[in-house]
């Protein structure tokens, strides 16, 4: 049912994405906006650095003391009449939510990446219940039977024309035959979605949302949205189910405020999301609230080499600034988490799961990076994404079968041999450069490199001044080496 390629490798999916003109158009349109709004939001502050430092500390405190804070959260939340459930795996989380939804037919959902992670909609759709995603982007993606391509803007890959067509198809032919060919304005589309989804809110029996944070001292779930859909989901239905990863915990209000200050600024350039809500209380007798704490591989990341990744606040800044993501879009990554944070998180979370195909598909993701380091620069909580990716690459290559075919293996062996003998390496390099120079004589480039087709498939390989100076350097080094005993 999901049209996202579930078997393709990142390599193939990315190549396909690059050939998709509407995807390129949508991504190009979105790209610049994200960057300018974010940089403006931070540039207007006198002490942006102090803000990100405070957020990083708040998250570090939260992740380091996770066990105690989670227990405190549970105690406080229970005391206020909120039920807390613990789920070790995606399967257990699904079962818990399904049990909480048993017998109910009308479910509205706020945006939640954790629910995408455990494929909750798929499980719910097998029951008799009707599940409606209410975040506009998620709703669009749900109608298109896809998965979100961005953790903040799920439908960033869709153009207005595509959304218009989807709405016409699913909402019935209200547009009239005459206007079939005209693409409606985005305002009209927002209005239509509001009208349709509003009816769902009014009749909802259960509201499922995620949580941006779980505040331990308060025993409350913090939810941040711009549309108000998360809150309508929580408020209008009698039962509110919050699904959150265990690493969403923060110690107290002060730490929550510190994270809030950078979260919206990094994501959309706002100083705060339009609606920040704290749920967890006893006030209303006509309401019950459940929090499902999802582990699904997170506790295994704790304390080890991947500990830093648990700090992630899912702001999406690294996606927006990634030269790879902005060209291929989120679906190429083959799972719900994409961009630099996805390259680290997906392989680690998949490991804990039981889906062998998923594991294989996302294991190679850390290689899809040029290590330009922009993600590290913009991360508001200072996650060293590139070094985590490097560690993941190393680990990936520990198993020989992940290196590739016999050609790659042979190449690696040759290189290893050359690297072990510097003099031989220089001789070889000088020879290669000389050959290239001869081949490029008069043109300044070569059109074909034997055995390295990937380099010259779409462009000529330039042999410019730099290559010539490299050759000179090489030869000088060789001479020097032969003089010294």
């Amino acid at each position, binding site marked *: 049912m999901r049209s996202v390629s579930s078997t393709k490798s990142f390599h193939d999916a990315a190549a396909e994405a690059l050939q998709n003109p509407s995807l390129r158009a949508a991504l190009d349109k979105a790209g610049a906006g994200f960057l300018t709004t974010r940089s403006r939001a931070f540039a207007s502050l006198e002490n942006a650095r*102090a803000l990100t430092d405070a957020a990083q500390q708040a998250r570090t405190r939260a992740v380091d003391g996770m066990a105690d804070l989670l227990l405190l959260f549970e105690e406080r939340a229970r005391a206020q009449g909120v039920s807390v459930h613990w789920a070790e795996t995606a399967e257990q989380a699904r079962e818990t939510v399904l*049990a909480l939804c*048993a017998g109910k037919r009308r479910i509205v959902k706020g945006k939640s990446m954790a629910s995408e992670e455990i494929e909750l909609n798929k499980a719910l759709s097998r029951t008799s219940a009707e599940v409606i995603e209410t975040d506009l982007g998620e709703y669009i993606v749900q109608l298109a039977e896809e998965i979100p391509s961005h953790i903040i803007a799920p439908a960033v890959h869709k153009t207005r024309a595509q959304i218009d067509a989807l709405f016409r198809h699913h909402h019935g032919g209200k547009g009239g035959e005459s206007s079939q060919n005209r693409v409606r304005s985005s305002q009209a589309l927002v209005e239509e979605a509001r009208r349709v989804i509003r009816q769902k809110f009014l009749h909802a029996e259960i509201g499922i949302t995620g949580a941006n944070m779980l505040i331990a001292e308060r025993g409350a779930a913090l939810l941040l949205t711009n549309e108000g859909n998360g809150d309508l989901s929580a408020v209008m239905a009698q039962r509110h189910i919050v699904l959150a990863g265990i690493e969403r915990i923060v110690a107290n209000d002060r730490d929550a405020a510190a994270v809030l200050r950078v979260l919206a600024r990094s994501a959309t350039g706002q100083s705060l999301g339009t*609606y920040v809500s704290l749920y967890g*209380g006893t006030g*209303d007798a006509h*309401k019950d609230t459940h929090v499902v704490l999802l582990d699904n591989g997170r506790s295994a990341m704790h304390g080890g080499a991947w500990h830093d990744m648990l700090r992630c606040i899912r702001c999406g800044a690294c996606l927006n600034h990634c030269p790879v993501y902005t060209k291929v879009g989120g679906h190429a990554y083959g799972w719900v988490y994409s961009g630099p944070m996805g390259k680290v998180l997906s392989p680690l979370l998949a490991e804990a799961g039981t889906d062998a195909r998923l594991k294989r598909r996302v294991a190679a993701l850390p290689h899809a990076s040029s290590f330009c380091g922009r993600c590290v620069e913009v991360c508001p909580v200072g996650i060293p994404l590139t070094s985590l990716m490097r560690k993941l690459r190393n680990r990936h290559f520990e198993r020989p079968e992940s290196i590739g075919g016999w050609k790659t293996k042979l190449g690696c062996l040759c290189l290893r041999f050359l690297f072990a003998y510097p003099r031989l390496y220089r001789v070889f390099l000088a020879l290669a450069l000389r050959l290239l120079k001869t081949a490029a004589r008069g043109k300044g480039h070569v059109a074909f490199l034997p055995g390295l087709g990937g380099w010259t498939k779409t462009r000529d390989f330039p042999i410019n001044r730099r290559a010539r100076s490299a050759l000179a350097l090489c030869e000088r080094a060789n001479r020097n080496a032969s003089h010294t005993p």
Partner: protein
Amino acid sequence: MMPSALDERRHAESRARIIARLRSAEKAEKAKAGKGEAATTSRAKPVLLKPVLPKFVEQTQGRTACFVARAEALSCQFLTGGQAAEKKTAGKMATEKMVKEKVIAKAALGKVLRDFFVARRGKKAAPLLLFDALEKAFWERLGILKILEGRCRPVEMREGVEGRDFATSPFPAFSLQRAVCAVAETGTLVFANRTRAQAVLTFLPTVHIVLLAERDITGSLEQAFARVQPSSSRAALWACHLVSGPSRTADIEQTLHMGAHGPKELVILLYR
């Protein structure tokens, strides 16, 4: 579905295993650090959080000005006491005057609100105005309900109200609600809702009218959080909501539109 999925014992076992994994990792890390090896994680140094706010927010007047400016930047509307004085004049004096106009005397609130409804009233019948049943006495004391008679149809929101109660009736167009406090730092209004009925006022109507006392404008987010502590409030809290402007979305081609699912307009009555 299997009822066992909600089994207490099963969840307790899961919790024990998750916590045990977290704790064993912590122990391993401590042991490693004890041996002199560098810990894999960057430990936080205790550093005091510097204030994020400009200095003028420490004074009431500065706070009001800051709140008004930031709320307006978020597309909030302020009702003014006198004539519609939205003329843009340069200079600091003009800004101060504009802020002053936006702070209404408590006695004039009813009149300002009536003028608002008179200006808004189209050809349609008087619109619904939702308000919290628990606050009825407060609105009556202010004389607001009486002065609005005929201009709109007030509806009391009681505990236990259901969404489908609105499915057949004309759609709630307006709601009137009192904010607990506001945040100057971000131009945010804070609501402490004790019941679902109160939260409906915040999210369901098309136009959300908010009453805010000037003395309730706080400086920072932290101060606002402190005002809505679960223990300190008069009654048990169900949820609190920090609202910064009307509902919005940019999910279609990153173009910003107001009124995604929540209120399309946020109207603030600031009084002293």
